[in-house]
């Protein structure tokens, strides 16, 4: 069974540029999560989707971050414009409702 797929794996951009990350969850998992992991820290939840509905986005910096999961499967996380402090690993995870979360390989973002 394929795991959570993320792309790109690495991204280097100049500050103020836009960037987007893509996630394909495990087949059948209706819950999708985006986390940000700063160096030397644990992941922090940005947004959680139940199917196509964002049910927990309280930690998402909405002035520059946006996310969508239009058909309840794939999801995209966007940052516009990126700031130096956005450099981190962005992790996508998926699960069945109230079950164990499985993480993708992550996208390592470097903002110069």
């Amino acid at each position, binding site marked *: 069974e394929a795991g959570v797929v993320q792309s790109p794996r690495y991204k280097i951009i100049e500050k103020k540029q836009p960037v987007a990350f893509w996630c394909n969850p495990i087949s059948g998992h209706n819950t999708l999560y985006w986390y940000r992991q700063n160096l030397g820290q644990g992941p922090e*939840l940005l947004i959680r989707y139940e199917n196509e509905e964002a049910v927990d986005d309280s930690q998402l910096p909405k002035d520059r971050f946006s996310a969508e999961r239009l058909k309840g499967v794939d999801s995209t996380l966007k940052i516009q414009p990126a700031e130096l402090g956005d450099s981190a690993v962005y992790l996508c995870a998926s699960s069945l409702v109230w079950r164990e979360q499985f993480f993708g390989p992550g996208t390592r973002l470097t903002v110069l």
Partner: protein
Amino acid sequence: ELKVEQNPLFLSMQEGKNYTIYCNYSTTSDRLYWYRQDPGKSLESLFVLLSNGAVKQEGRLMASLDTKARLSTLHITAAVHDLSATYFCAVDLDGTSGSRLTFGEGTQLTVNP
């Protein structure tokens, strides 16, 4: 606000020795997870603990959960070099809004020959 604290944050140990990593959390929950992360890699699920008194073992690792003390432990028996990694505990809030993991800072384990 839920707080999850792990200690120690850094652990250097010799092969063959035993040690325990502690995970304390501040709010009622009976769902706790342990993950392993190798450098530059994603998180690998190790244990899922879903009730008070739960104990799970896999190889040289054993995890337990005491929900009354709000404490989970990850015990390492006879460590080997391959166990070198960062270990995270994550607590799932006990609410009706669905799953919301809060992670500890992680324990960076180095096992020396």
